[in-house]
């Protein structure tokens, strides 16, 4: 596709999110087959902005926001979409929740959403396709050029652990406590094209790489790269894909505000250039975040200094503060700061719910549905 090699410029720092959501049934709170029926109803709603799309299995839907200038209007739109979604889901006796993974569903029970692309994924990846019933938030940040997108992709990678810890909400998997804050990333890691962008430094070099991969027959489109952060030329954005879907829309909007302010800060000082060392420490930092949340260690690729992810986020918040203020994201950033100081991830909340519910994971899902609807 020629269009993929052409980077469509978009308004710098414009913002949009995709949220993958869980469809569960109130009788037992397991995932259920409901995407097609729900989407059928949503199609008929004239008041729905953004888009709602199917995902790999029939227990998932993906909510796409429109493009926004800031996180406040983004949150407003997400809330409107939520009301429509809850109304239609209520007609069908479906419940919806956030969270990076369903705590106890059996992956083998899942059914692939019937369309060509998903069938091709099953054909290629076998059981990984059903295992991929995990739920992420993707944040799009607008870039004016392909070169900017490549620059930002590398620069943002250092902060991947921040996004993991701030969104972590998949402590349970297949009925077990994984001891991780984000177990969802493990499901993503299984794919051969997961990981990160190669160390290319501008758009031309990236397209050279991409064309080679295409000629080898390894990828058919950029969708085949399951990277933590990837450029999205059709939208003119970079897409941060490491986040679990948080339990609340509010948290999703906070993450978007954080990404936007961070991008603004990184683009402000182009003298800081990407260094290869980012990718030396990346897997270590990423693991620490998904395993230990805020308490995980983060190695700074430039200085080699090691501190906790919480400390690193708090320092970053101070650094990007002025940019957030300019973008109108002062209050969201203050809220994030309080959250990090509190030291609790969504996974901690889910574990606390489980303890309060005498160990019942069904109860955890019920609470998560309530939390998402409130």
């Amino acid at each position: 596709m020629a269009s993929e090699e052409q980077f469509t410029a978009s308004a710098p720092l414009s913002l949009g999110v995709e949220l993958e959501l869980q469809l569960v049934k109130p009788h037992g709170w397991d995932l259920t087959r409901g995407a097609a029926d729900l989407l059928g109803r949503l199609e008929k709603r004239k008041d729905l902005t953004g888009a709602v799309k199917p995902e790999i299995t029939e227990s998932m839907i993906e909510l796409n926001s429109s493009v926004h200038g800031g996180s406040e209007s983004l949150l407003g739109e997400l809330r409107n979409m939520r009301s429509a979604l809850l109304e239609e889901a209520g007609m069908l006796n479906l419940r919806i929740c956030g969270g990076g993974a369903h705590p106890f569903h059996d992956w083998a029970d899942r059914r692939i959403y019937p369309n060509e692309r998903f069938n091709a994924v099953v054909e290629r990846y076998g059981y990984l396709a059903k295992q991929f019933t995990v739920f992420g938030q993707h944040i799009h940040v607008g870039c004016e050029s392909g070169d900017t997108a490549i620059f930002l992709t590398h620069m943002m990678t250092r902060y991947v652990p921040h996004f993991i810890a701030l969104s972590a909400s998949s402590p349970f998997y297949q009925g077990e406590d994984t001891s991780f804050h984000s177990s969802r990333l493990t499901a993503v890691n299984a794919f051969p094209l997961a990981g990160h962008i190669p160390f290319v430094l501008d758009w031309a070099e990236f397209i050279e790489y991409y064309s080679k991969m295409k000629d080898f027959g390894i990828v058919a489109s950029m969708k085949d790269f399951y990277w933590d952060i990837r450029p999205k030329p059709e939208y003119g954005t970079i897409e941060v894909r490491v986040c679990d879907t948080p339990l609340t829309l509010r948290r999703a909007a906070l993450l978007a505000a954080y990404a936007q302010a961070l991008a603004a800060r990184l683009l402000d000082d182009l003298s800081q250039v990407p260094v290869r060392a980012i990718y030396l420490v990346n897997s270590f930092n990423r693991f620490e975040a998904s395993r230990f949340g805020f308490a995980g260690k983060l190695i700074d690729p430039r200085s080699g200094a090691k501190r906790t992810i919480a400390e690193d986020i708090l320092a970053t918040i101070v650094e990007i503060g002025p940019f957030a203020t300019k973008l109108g994201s002062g209050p969201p950033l203050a809220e994030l700061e309080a959250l990090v100081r509190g030291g609790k991830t969504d996974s901690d909340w889910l574990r606390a719910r489980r303890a309060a519910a005498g160990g019942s994971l069904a109860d955890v899902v019920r609470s998560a549905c309530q939390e998402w609807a409130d």
Partner: protein
Amino acid sequence: MDLAFLPQAPAVSRLMLLGMLLLAALAAGEAVRRYAKVPRITGYVIIGALLGPEGAGLINGDALFEMRLLVDLAIGLVVFDLGRRLDMTWLRRNRWLVVGALAESVFCFWAIYAALSFFGFTPLLASIAAAIGTSTSPAVVILVSEELRSEGQVTERLMLFTAVNTVLAYLLLALLLPFLHLQHDVDWKTAVLHPAYVFAGAAAVGAIASMVLLRFARWLGKKPDRQFILQIAVVVITIGVAHSLKISVPVALVTLGLLARNTDSRHDLVPVPYGHGGQVFFLILFVLTGASLEFHLFGVATATAVAVFIVARFLGKAAALLTFGVASGIPKGGAGLLAIALLPLSGQAVVMVRDTVSLYPSFGRELAAIVLSAVAVLELVGPIATEFALRRAGEAHPEPAREAV
């Protein structure tokens, strides 16, 4: 030498009979699934009919009576489970669903009533047959959908509508009881008090049982294995109490399930699947249902009435679903499939008829001829219809349940 330690022949004990029944039903269920691709339930019913009083006679009236407890327990668990699936929040959010579910029962009742009246049956007989015909078999719909691992809007509504029409069938019967009494010269006080007692008493017993269940569950904590025993215990006690008070067992159990689900504000009850153990009860339930089918009633004369009953019943359900289905959010084409899925007639109809027969034998015989023959037909066809509908709706799981390793 004293050979008194040897058994006195012949020694086919009840236990041996039960064991052999299980084996035979297991084989029949497996055979129909493999070779005819129809639900195992149909195989259980066939083997029951073949071995029952009207077949080989291996299961005779005494055996049926003695195994009654197992049947009661199996039905009890199913009806309780059905009540527990009745989510009042869904009904509150989707008002058309209430309209649809009520219409499904009411249309079905009127269709059977009108058709039988048209063919010259007395209004009372037609209306009692219609009341019984209103209900769908909870056991068949739950077990078929579980066997298929079916999920989706048709399946959800199938459960909901079955729960509603089961309750309404009993309510209609209770409302008709006074007329039956009055026709037989019973004073009006008895005529009114009796059905009120049967129905309200059952609701009260169900309500008390649900409170006991929830209290006990809270004390136990959220442990599925403990709560499994608790639920069985409360269901059995409820059946027992309802029997001895001569009130409606199914109404008591639906009430129990319904209230256990909808008044559990602290979410003390955890979902417990009945699993492999439950399957044994359900297998016995259908074998014995098969054994109690009365094919001898099926004559040329009744054949027409039975056909009228079955067709009118289906048309009534279909008319309601096609009218109100779309408004309540059934996906395209789902309304007709739901009507087909609702075809199974409850084996409970046999009990309803027996109860009526025991009150007024001569009236009961005429009723029995129609309803029990319809039960015989629908016990065989119903599960197949439900399976067809759920598969056609795309709600059956494409892969069979995982085998054990």
